[in-house]
Every structure is written in structure tokens, then in C-alpha cells.
């Protein structure tokens, strides 16, 4: 049988991309002062620290971890709630296919984009400066962060709905609010709830570190113990927080799977 000859694939493009990526990573590492030798030299120090944290953690401290942890969850819940609540109507305004008025949707989107570029930590430090130390500042920061996240996802959902259902409602004499209620909401509500749960997952994790800038929750307890070098207590905080986040992620993502 004749041998089939196929031209060799041209890998030039791929190789250039690989090279560029490697160069980029190395370049950034050098720029950031990252040095593998430092990592190895400090390895034993790190091992000793880990030992003091987890061998064993100070379990007697566990009951003290619960109240700030609950505060963290409450911050996440309240922040998610307000963020999502405001996100829904704003998403409707931002969607280009509902009001059909670029003079409204474009500016609203611009504002949303600005909100979304600010990390929750930055917002939190800002609000701590304004409202003082405590969970209130954290909740405001989380609300705004959630608002930015959910409104963007939701208006994109609104723009990808089946428009035939909207047309049908128009054809029978419905006004905008009725169209919203009977044609748009049924289509996006499951997705909106899924985004809200996702926002909650993200917020639990954010809320856990927000305390670092004084915005309440478990992060504040963490920071306090680290400052006092109570490493065995820090270990307990990490273990318990880790477990809680894990359980919440698991439950929430399972509900989300069922929603959509």
C-alpha cells in the first residue's frame, strides 16, 4: 500500500505564543522581585510556622471563633441581599432590548462598569475611612461589589432572552411593566437567583478577609491573633473558616445547578 504523506503541521505560531508566555511570566517574576532561592531559604521558617499553627491548633479557642464567623456570614447575607435587590431594576435599565433607549442603557452600563472595576477590599477600606471600623462598612462594601457583579450578569441575561415572548405580550396590548412581569422575569429569574447565590459564595470569602482592613467579621479576629503571634489560634480560625466556606460552596453550587 502507498504510504500517505501529510505535510508536517506548522508549529511556528504555537511556539511563538509559548515563548511569549514564558517570557512574560519570567519578566513579571523578575520585576516583582520573585526569587526561588528566597522561597527555599524561607521554607524551614514556613514549616515551623505551619507547625505552630496546626500541630495542634488551639481547639479550646474554637467557641470564640463562632461569633465572628456568624458575623461574617451575616455580612455576606445582608451584603448579597441589598446588592442583588438593587441590581435587578438597574439591570433592566441597562439592558438594551427593554427600554430601547441608548440614552439610558449606555450611561447606566458605564456606571456599572466603573463599579465593577473596584475590588471589594478597596471599597471596604474606603468605607472604613468614612463610617469607621466595624461590620457596617463591610456590608456596604459587599453590597456595592455584589451590585456590580449581579447587575452585569443579569442585564446580559435579559439581552439574551427569547424575544418572541416579549413580542407576543406586545401584540396583546401589554405595557412595559406587564412585559417585564410576564415575559422577561419568568425567563431571567432562575438565572438571577443563581447569580445571587454565586454572589453569596464570593461574598463569604470576601467577608472573611474584609476584617483585615477593619470592616468586621472573622478577618478582624484573624488579624488580631496574628498580631499577637497566637499562631495556634490562627490555625483554628483557618480550619473552621475553611470548612464553613467549603460547605457553603458545596450547598450553593448544588442549588445553582438545579436552578438553571
Amino acid at each position, binding site marked *: 500500500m502507498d504510504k500517505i504523506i501529510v505535510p508536517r503541521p506548522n508549529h511556528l505560531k504555537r511556539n511563538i505564543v509559548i515563548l511569549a508566555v514564558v517570557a512574560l511570566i519570567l519578566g513579571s517574576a523578575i520585576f516583582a522581585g520573585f526569587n526561588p532561592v528566597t522561597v527555599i531559604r524561607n521554607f524551614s521558617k514556613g514549616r515551623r510556622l505551619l507547625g505552630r499553627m496546626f500541630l495542634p491548633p488551639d481547639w479550646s479557642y474554637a467557641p470564640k471563633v463562632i461569633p465572628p464567623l456568624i458575623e461574617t456570614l451575616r455580612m455576606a447575607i445582608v451584603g448579597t441581599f441589598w446588592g442583588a435587590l438593587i441590581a435587578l431594576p438597574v439591570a433592566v435599565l441597562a439592558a438594551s432590548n427593554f427600554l430601547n433607549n441608548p440614552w439610558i442603557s449606555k450611561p447606566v452600563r458605564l456606571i456599572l462598569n466603573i463599579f465593577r472595576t473596584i475590588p471589594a477590599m478597596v471599597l471596604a477600606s474606603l468605607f472604613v475611612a468614612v463610617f469607621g471600623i466595624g461590620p457596617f462598612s463591610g456590608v456596604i462594601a459587599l453590597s456595592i461589589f455584589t451590585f456590580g457583579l449581579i447587575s452585569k450578569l443579569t442585564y446580559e441575561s435579559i439581552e439574551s432572552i427569547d424575544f418572541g*415572548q416579549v413580542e*407576543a405580550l406586545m401584540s396583546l396590548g401589554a405595557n412595559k411593566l406587564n412585559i417585564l412581569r410576564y415575559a422577561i422575569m419568568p425567563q431571567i429569574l432562575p438565572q438571577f437567583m443563581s447569580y445571587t447565590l454565586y454572589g453569596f459564595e464570593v461574598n463569604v470569602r470576601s467577608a472573611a478577609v474584609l476584617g483585615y482592613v477593619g470592616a468586621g467579621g472573622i478577618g478582624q479576629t484573624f488579624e488580631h491573633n496574628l498580631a499577637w503571634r497566637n499562631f495556634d489560634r490562627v490555625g483554628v480560625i483557618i480550619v473552621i473558616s475553611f470548612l464553613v466556606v467549603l460547605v457553603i460552596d458545596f450547598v450553593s453550587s448544588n442549588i445553582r445547578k438545579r436552578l438553571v
Partner: protein
Amino acid sequence: MIEFTGVSKVYPNGTKALNNINLTIKEGEFVAIIGLSGAGKSTLLRLINQLIPATSGTVSFDGTEVTKAKGKELRNIRRQIGMIFQGFNIVKRASVLTNVLSGRVAYHPTWKTILGLFPEEDKQIAYRALQRVDILEKVHSRASDLSGGQQQRVAIARALAQEPRLMLADEPVASLDPITTIQVMDYLKKINKEDGITTIANLHHVDLALNYATRVVGVKEGHIVYDVKIKDIDKKTFLADLEKVYGRAIHHDEMLGDE
């Protein structure tokens, strides 16, 4: 009842969909609109309830100029005109009852309909509409759980709940199998006959038009090129006449099936 006077439609991208249409449709007629894909059938239908605005000319419904109506006035005209679509366009994630009740929204203050507060009377209208199309037993089902033919019947029930005077149907059976097609067309015919609701349907199959309509209007490239009452159709020349509409003769084997 409906009067097109010198109506043209040019879409924003420059497509000339309709050109100087003059057409009068009388109360109680069942008009089938036939024509090739892209001829302008959907455009013609959508001008009647102003889902799209006309570029020039006027369309009037019962003496009111639809082409001029806006806001509340337009919605009051629309609620008298039912429309069913090829893709059914019912709200899949809502119950059958909610879908049919939504046909009543234009009759009540918005705050009530938003809260889902429909009077008992409206529910009776909805049940009766569902009964008309023999699907009352599905009243509490989720619309997405129904078959295509059942969904189209719910769409008809929603239109009936409007208590309309006119029914527009844009290829109502194009995504249904032949048996369901006959069922749905039978319901449309029954409603047209028993309730005297004027019906205009875009149809892809000539023999459906012959079997159900009282009048056939042929559209080609934005013009009306054929307009005959069924009772006046000359069987001998009919197939040849269709050449005007489709640009070529239709053969017997291109029909859905002979009766």
C-alpha cells in the same frame, strides 16, 4: 374592517419589504396569505398591530388609523387583535393558566396585573378559552411541559382570552407535524366561523389555504399579485395562477396531500 392604503415598508437596513399595498379585509373573512419566503407576508401581518411601523401609507382597523396610534390608544387597539406565531411564543416557565390570563392584562390597571390579581370573571374567560381548544385539563401544567401542538393551542387560548375581533396567525402550523397541523387549523376555522372572528393567516401550504380560507391573497416581492375568493377559484386555471405568486407552476405532488 382592515384597510391598507398605499402602504410601503422599508426596513432600516434598506430592504424594501412591501410596496404600495392596497388591501381591504371584511368582517368575518378567513384570509390566507401565501407567497415565497421573504415575499413580505410577516411584514404585512405585523403592520396591522404595529409590531413594526409603516414607512408610508395608512393601515386602519375599524376606521381607526393604527399607523398613527401610540401608547394607550395603540394598546387598546392591540388588545382587540389576537396574534399567534410559528414559534408559539408562550411563556415557557409559567403555567398554562398564567399564560392565558396574560391575554387579559390590557383590560386592567397595571398594579393589579403586576400582582397577578385577575378577577374571577377573567379566570372563567381563561377556562372557557382553554376548553375551546380542548386543553382545559392542562390548566395547571407548566407550559414548557406541553408538546408543540398543545403549546400552540395554549397560544390560541391566550389570544381568545383577549376576546379579540381579529386573529392574526403568522405561519401558525409551520413547526407542527401534519396531524397536529390539521387540529390547529380546525380550531382556527371553528373560532372564525362560530365567533365571527376575522382571521388572517400566513400559510406555506397552498392546500391549507384552499381548505380553510375564504380568500387567498398572494404576495410576491412586496406586491399583492393574487387575490381571489375561494368560491370564485377556477379549478382548471388555479395551479397555473399560482405561477404568479411563486414564479413557477406548482405541481400536484407539492401539495400536502389530496383530499
